[in-house]
C-alpha cells in the first residue's frame, strides 16, 4: 500500500514537472492567443454595444445595434435570407457530389491518384480571387456558358448580372469545390472492412442494398464531420460574393452574403459597432446550429464501437 502510494507520488511529481515545461513551451503561443485572439474578441463584444465610426471614440448605446438589426434593417434580413439559401442549397449538394465521386474513385480505377488530384484541385482554387473573377467571366452575358447555350439555339441572359440567377452561380461555385469532403469520404470508405461486403454479397445483396445497409451507416460519422465543417465554412463565405458582385452584393442585393454586409457596414458605412454586433449574431447562429447538429447526431450517426 505504502509502496504504491510512494510510486504514485513520484509519478505525480514527474508529471507536474512535465506539465510545467509544457506550459512554458506553450507560453509564447498562449501570449499570442491572448493578444491576437481573445483580446480582439472581447473588444468586439464591447464594440457591439457602441456606436463606433472608427474615426471617433466609441459611444456606449446598449442594445441599440441588436434592436436595429432585427426591427429596422431590412437589408440585414435580406443578407440572412441570402446566406441561408446559399447554405441550405449548396452544402447538401456539395456533400452529395463529393460522396458520389468518392464512391466512384473507391472502386479502384486505374490512375486513381491522378483523378483524385484533379478532383481536389477546385478545392484549392475555389476560394481564390482568380477563380471568382473567372466565374464572373464564364457566367457573364458574353461568357462561355452563353456561348455553349447559343450552340443549342438558347439565348442566355447575364447570369451574374441577374438577381434571379446570380446566387445560383455562387452556389455552383461552392458545389464545384467538393474536393476536401471528397478526400475525407474516400478515407472513410477505406475504413470499412471489405469482409462486410463479401458477407453481404454471399447473402445476395446488390450494390444498392450494400450501399444502404453497409456503406451509408458506417459512413455517418464522416458525413456528420463534413456537414459540421461545411456548414460553418459556408456561413462565413465572403470572397466569392465580394468578387463576383464587385463588393456590393448586387444585383439588387441578391448576393448580399452575411459577411459581405457586415464588411459593408463596418468599412463602407463607418458603422463598426453595428458590424461587431452582426459578427456576434453570426457567432450565435453558427454555435446554435452546430449545437443542434450535435444533438441531432444522436439519432442518425452510427459509431460502430458504441453499439
Amino acid at each position: 500500500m505504502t509502496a504504491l502510494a510512494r510510486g504514485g507520488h513520484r509519478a505525480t511529481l514527474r508529471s507536474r514537472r512535465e506539465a510545467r515545461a509544457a506550459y512554458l513551451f506553450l507560453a509564447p503561443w498562449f501570449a499570442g492567443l491572448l493578444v491576437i485572439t481573445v483580446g480582439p474578441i472581447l473588444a468586439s463584444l464591447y464594440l457591439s454595444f457602441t456606436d463606433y465610426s472608427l474615426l471617433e471614440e466609441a459611444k456606449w448605446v446598449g442594445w441599440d445595434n441588436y434592436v436595429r438589426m432585427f426591427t429596422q434593417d431590412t437589408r440585414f434580413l435580406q443578407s440572412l435570407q441570402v446566406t441561408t439559401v446559399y447554405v441550405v442549397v449548396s452544402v447538401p449538394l456539395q456533400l452529395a457530389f463529393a460522396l458520389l465521386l468518392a464512391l466512384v474513385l473507391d472502386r479502384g480505377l486505374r490512375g486513381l491518384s491522378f483523378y483524385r488530384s484533379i478532383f481536389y484541385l477546385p478545392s484549392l482554387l475555389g476560394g481564390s480571387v482568380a477563380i471568382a473573377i473567372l466565374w464572373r467571366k464564364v457566367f457573364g452575358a458574353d461568357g462561355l456558358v452563353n456561348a455553349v447555350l447559343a450552340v443549342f439555339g438558347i439565348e442566355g441572359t447575364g447570369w451574374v448580372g441577374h438577381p434571379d440567377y446570380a446566387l445560383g452561380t455562387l452556389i455552383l461555385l461552392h458545389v464545384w469545390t467538393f474536393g476536401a469532403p471528397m478526400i475525407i469520404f474516400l478515407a472513410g470508405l477505406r475504413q470499412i472492412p471489405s469482409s462486410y461486403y463479401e458477407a453481404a454479397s454471399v447473402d445476395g445483396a446488390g450494390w444498392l442494398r450494400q450501399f444502404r445497409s453497409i456503406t451509408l451507416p458506417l459512413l455517418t460519422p464522416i458525413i456528420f464531420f463534413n456537414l459540421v465543417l461545411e456548414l460553418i465554412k459556408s456561413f462565413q463565405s465572403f470572397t466569392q460574393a465580394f468578387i463576383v458582385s464587385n463588393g456590393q452584393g448586387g444585383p439588387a442585393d441578391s448576393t448580399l452574403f452575411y459577411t459581405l454586409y457586415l464588411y459593408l457596414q463596418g468599412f463602407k458605412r463607418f458603422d463598426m459597432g453595428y458590424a461587431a454586433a452582426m459578427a456576434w449574431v453570426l457567432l450565435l447562429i453558427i454555435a446554435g446550429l452546430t449545437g443542434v447538429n450535435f444533438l441531432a447526431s444522436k439519432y442518425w450517426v452510427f459509431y460502430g464501437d458504441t453499439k
Partner: protein
Amino acid sequence: MNSGKKKWSAALLATAVLAVTAACGSGSDGGSADGKVVLRFSYWGSDARQKMTEEAIKKFEEKNPTIDVEGEFSDFASYYESLSTKVAASDAPDVITLEIRALREYATRGTLADLSSKVNTADVDAKVLATGAIDGKQYAIPTGVNAFSLIVNPALVESSGQKLPDDTSWTWDDYVKLAAGVTSGSGGKVTGTQLSWNPAYLEIFAAQKGEPFYQGNQLGVSPQTITEWWGIMQNLIKDKGAPEAAKSSEIGATSVDQSLLGTNSGAMGMWWSNQLGAVVKASGQNLELLRMPKLAGAATGGMFMQPAMFYSASSKTEHAAEAAKFIDFMINDPEAGAIVLSDRGLPASSKVLAAVRDKLPEADQKTLAFLDEAKGELKDPPAAPPKGASAMEEMLTRYSEEVMFGRMEPADAAQKFIAEANAAIAG
C-alpha cells in the same frame, strides 16, 4: 535533471526569439535615423499614377532635403478601409488624399487639420476652393477639377448611320432615340449607350427640374424626379439603346476600361471628364465629350464642375508645417504640375494650368477645351455632401436595379430610396 534544464533553456530561447521578432515589427514613428522628417502621404490609383507620384515626390525631396516623403498607395476599392483603420489606430498618414464624398466624414470627425493660410491658394478658383471648406475651415485643397459628362465615339455613331447630336440643344428623348438608332443601325454589333447610376447623373437631371440633390442633411430630389429619371433608362432598355437589365448590371460593376465605350462595343457612356484619357486609351479610338442632354424647356443644363480629389493633412500630425509645404508643392509648383499633369483633374491652380497647358495629352486638351467652352453654363461646384454620402452610389444602384428588373414599382422604389438615403445622411 539534465533533460529538465534543456527544456527550460529551449523554452526561454523560444520566448526570446518571439520577443525579438515582435520588437522588429514595430516601425519608425516620424523621424528617421539621419535626422530627416518622415512625411507619410496616402493616395489611391493606378500604377501609372504611382509612378507619376513617386517622381513628383522625388522632385519635392530634392528641393527639401530635410524631408523624406513616403507614399502609401493602394487601389481605390480598398483605400478607405486601410485609411479608416489607420486613423482608428492613431496611425493616420500626415498627408491624406480624399474625394469629395468622404470629405465631411473625415473633417467633421476631427481627423483633418485646418489648412487656411498654411497653403497658398491664391491661384485656385474661389468657388472650387470653397468645396474643400466646411464651417469656414479649409480642411482640404482641391487638386483639380472635372465635370460629369457624356462621352461619345463619333466613328461608331456614324458607321451606324446616325448623326452626332447638337449637344447645346439635345433632349433626353433625342438621346434615347440616338442610342436606339445606333443599336439598330449597326445590326446590334454596337450598342447605343450603357446605363449609369452615378449620383452625379441624377444630380444633373434634378437640377434641370430645379431641384438640388442635397438640401442640408436631406435629399432635395423628389420621388417624381427620380421616377422620371428611371424612365429614361427604362426607355433605353425597351428600345434596345442599352443592354438588357442583367447585362447592364454586369457591365455596371466593371471599371471604365471594361465599359462598352472602352471595348468599342458601345457608342456612348457617362463618365467624369478626367476619365476621358482612360477610355481613349482602352478603346484606342477618337472619343469626344458632349454636354448632357436636357429636359425640354429646362432653364439650366445642370452640369457642374467638381474637384477630382483633395489633399488634406491629419490633425494629429507632428509635422504640420512640412505637410503643408508638401501640399503647397503639389498644388502650386509648376514642376509638380508638369509631372502630374491632369491625372488628378485639370490643375486647380490657374498658374500651374497655364504652365502645363501645352504639355497635356490630346484627351486632356479636349477636356480643357470642353470645360472652357461650357464654363458659362456650369453650375457652381456643390458643397461637400453630408456625412454618409459615400454610400449614395451603392444605394442608388441597388434601387435602380430593382426598378430595371421590374421587381419594384418606380414610385415605391423612389420613396424607399429617399427614406434610406435620408437615414444614412441624417447625422
